[in-house]
């Protein structure tokens, strides 16, 4: 651990020095272009690294702006002139009526947002917040696994509805899910020099590629969606890992299609991008995150492309109107959304977004986590906006066997603290814990219900809530919401009297 911290400290210090001096790395001329046009520019990758080094909650220099209805380009220019850099409106990046401004001259996004918010042409402006994934890795174990599905009586639930149908699409807004078997040349820092390496990628062998639909990368490049973290793959596996294929593990909606939407950048996304531009060092461990602008784009994309369920296993303490509008847009288009509550109970239990929006939007559910003994996982955030609970794993409740085990990238191949030359073509069962793991249980259950004919997101939420098994204080409470999801009970619906 000391070695890791030292590495992080050195890298962070070097990065801050570089950013503060305004100089570019000497090796910048030695470029190794990516296989596809990058969406992540070197400057933006540096911004992510800066955010990690300085623990900023946003992408430095980035602001999301919503102008008032009817505001012309000339008026937008006038509003933007309030900023010192006076960026032109023509340089804004638009998505769903929301403009993303990148201001290279001012990294303090909160300051930028404050200046813009007071302009009469602006409805709101907010930093492009960086949300974090709500999962905590833990050591793997081959002991008892998938207690989570046994707890939920999934075998009997699958008697009623065998894993949804392939025309039911579940979008996973996350770090991605690898969609190709390919090897790409990537540049990375070896410790002494930037070198080009062959990085193999492979699809999850326990999640049939035929079930992947309309994948999209919103943050890394214009090429195929790749997961270089493992979080997105794990979450997608909980939703739809294959069944009956003699490979270990299964997902709840194992026949549903998965729409992998990469809205989060991991360590290797940043490292490869910066090394390709000649940055000669390791980026600080922990670099990455999920810009709210990209999350919102992904949500809208999912809704526009047929997703009936969306899983969002990420969040942050800063509210984002952009994200809230995207949630409302998706629900209005018929998509149910499961959102992780957050893992910050022991860190002051702050209100997390977008989970906090769930209470106000029918069709969006905030999901807390329980451990193996069905007690609230010790990390699981609480609050009046908690709506439902699902197994998220808790190592303090059963050790490694109390984690949620699903197929994902083998962590030994790409651990940012220990691996220099990563690979992403090997998969393993991996135990994780977090509300990130709980949320896809609800998303998978929703997929089953949608395939059963309940197509209204608000109805899906109502059914999941009404059939939940009450835990904790009687009735709805801040720890478990309405209680533990009961997929089988929900699928059974109602008779005349029961």
């Amino acid at each position: 651990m000391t070695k890791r911290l030292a590495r992080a400290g050195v890298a962070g210090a070097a990065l801050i020095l570089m950013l503060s001096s305004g100089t570019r790395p000497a090796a910048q001329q030695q470029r190794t272009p990516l296989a596809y046009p990058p969406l992540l520019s070197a400057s933006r990758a540096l911004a992510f690294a800066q955010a990690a080094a300085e623990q900023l909650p946003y992408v430095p220099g980035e602001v999301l702006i919503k102008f008032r209805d009817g505001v012309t380009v000339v008026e937008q220019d006038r509003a933007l002139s309030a900023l010192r850099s006076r960026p032109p409106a023509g340089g804004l990046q638009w998505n769903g009526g929301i403009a993303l401004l990148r201001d290279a001259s001012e990294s303090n996004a909160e300051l930028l947002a404050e200046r813009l918010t007071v302009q009469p042409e602006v409805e709101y402006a907010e930093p492009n917040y960086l949300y974090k994934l709500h999962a905590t890795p833990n050591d793997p174990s081959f002991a008892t696994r998938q207690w989570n599905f046994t707890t939920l009586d999934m075998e009997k639930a699958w008697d009623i509805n065998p894993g949804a149908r392939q025309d039911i699409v579940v979008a996973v807004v996350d770090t991605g899910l690898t969609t190709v078997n390919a090897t790409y040349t990537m540049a990375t820092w070896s410790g002494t020099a930037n070198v080009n390496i062959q990085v193999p990628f492979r699809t999850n062998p326990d999640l049939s590629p035929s079930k992947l639909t309309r994948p999209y990368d919103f943050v890394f490049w214009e090429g195929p969606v790749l997961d270089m973290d493992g979080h997105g793959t794990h979450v997608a596996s909980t939703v739809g890992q294959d069944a009956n294929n003699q490979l270990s593990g299964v997902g709840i909606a194992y026949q549903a299609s998965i729409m992998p939407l990469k809205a989060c950048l991991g360590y290797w996304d940043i490292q490869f991008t910066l090394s390709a531009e000649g940055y000669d060092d390791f980026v600080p461990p922990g670099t990455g995150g999920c810009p709210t602008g990209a999350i919102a784009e992904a949500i809208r994309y999912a809704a526009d492309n047929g997703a009936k369920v969306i899983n969002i296993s990420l969040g942050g303490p800063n509210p984002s109107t952009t994200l809230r509008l995207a949630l409302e847009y998706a629900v209005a288009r018929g998509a149910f959304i499961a959102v992780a509550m957050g893992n910050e109970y022991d860190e002051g239990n702050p209100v997390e977004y977008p989970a906090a929006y769930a209470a106000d939007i029918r069709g969006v559910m905030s999901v807390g986590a329980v451990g193996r003994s069905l007690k609230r996982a010790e990390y699981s955030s609480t609050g009046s906006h908690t709506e439902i609970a699902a197994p998220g794993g808790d190592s303090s409740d059963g050790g490694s066997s109390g984690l949620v085990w699903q197929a994902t990238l083998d962590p030994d191949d790409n651990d940012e603290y220990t691996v220099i030359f990563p690979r992403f073509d090997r998969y393993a069962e991996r135990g994780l814990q977090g509300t990130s793991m709980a949320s896809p249980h609800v998303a998978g259950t929703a997929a089953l219900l949608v395939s059963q004919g309940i197509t209204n997101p608000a109805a899906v939420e109502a059914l999941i809530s009404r059939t939940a098994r009450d835990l904790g204080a009687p009735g709805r409470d801040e720890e478990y919401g309405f209680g533990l999801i009961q997929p089988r009970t929900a699928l059974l619906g109602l008779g005349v009297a029961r």
Partner: protein
Amino acid sequence: MNGAARTAVLRRSAAIVLLAVLAFPLSARAQSQVRVISDGVTIWKPGFTVIATTAKTGDVFEVVALRGNWYEIIVPSPPGQPDSTGFIAATRVEPIGGGPPPPRTGGNPARTGQASQAPRTAPAPANRSSTRLAVQGGYGWFMADQGFEAVNGSSGGPWFGGGLRYDSTRNFFVEGSLEYYRGTGERVFVFEDTIYRLGIENKVSILPLMLTGGFSLRSKSATTYVGGGAGAYFLRESAEFTEESEDLKETSLGYRAVAGVLFPLGAAAAGGVEVQYNTVPNGLEGGAAAAFDESNLGGFNIVVKFLFGR
């Protein structure tokens, strides 16, 4: 229409049908006439001490009532004077007019000890007690019509049953019955005004075990009755994919009001129509019924009923 309004309509309908059933024999009585079948038949004034007049073959009289073996009839008076009633022997007339004979409304009209040949020779019909087997079948509409319609596709269904009925000599009756309803449908989820059908078979059965008693008016041609009762409603519900231990098995207390009319069908049988108004408060505590704020398992039934035995 919401549940409360539907229940009100159901109750109003039940009341109308009950009144109609009770009004039927009264209407029949008002329409009865008799025709004299021999000449020189004596018509007695009430009291049987004075002869009002005599009648000849073919004379027709309006009947007020059948009293023992005597018809009380309306005796026409001269113009300007009110009609009076008199008595004519039932053996000297035949009923006409299409309506059933009037009900027997009592015993012999003669006063005890009255020195009159005619009354003394007219034996009074006596009500006999009887215990008979009852068989019934019909259709019922549930108060929880929205809940039943959501699951079973219909707010009512056929009912069958049977039991034993005892009629006393004093015009009281008691009936014990066991009835049965069974509906098959599809499990649902109800959200706001939308019913989502889940494609899972659902079966519900209701078995009321009832004890009903009441008062009957008997005549040669028909028996009308009204009454009330109480009993246990056994509710069972099961579904595809559920285990027996998960099936719903509830028992609730129910109440009933009935009215009916029975007609003789030969010497040892009778048949007729009965209307039932049943209420089973809190007989439904969950499911689709609860989603519609319905909790009463009762309803309104119309059944055809047959009694066998003497």
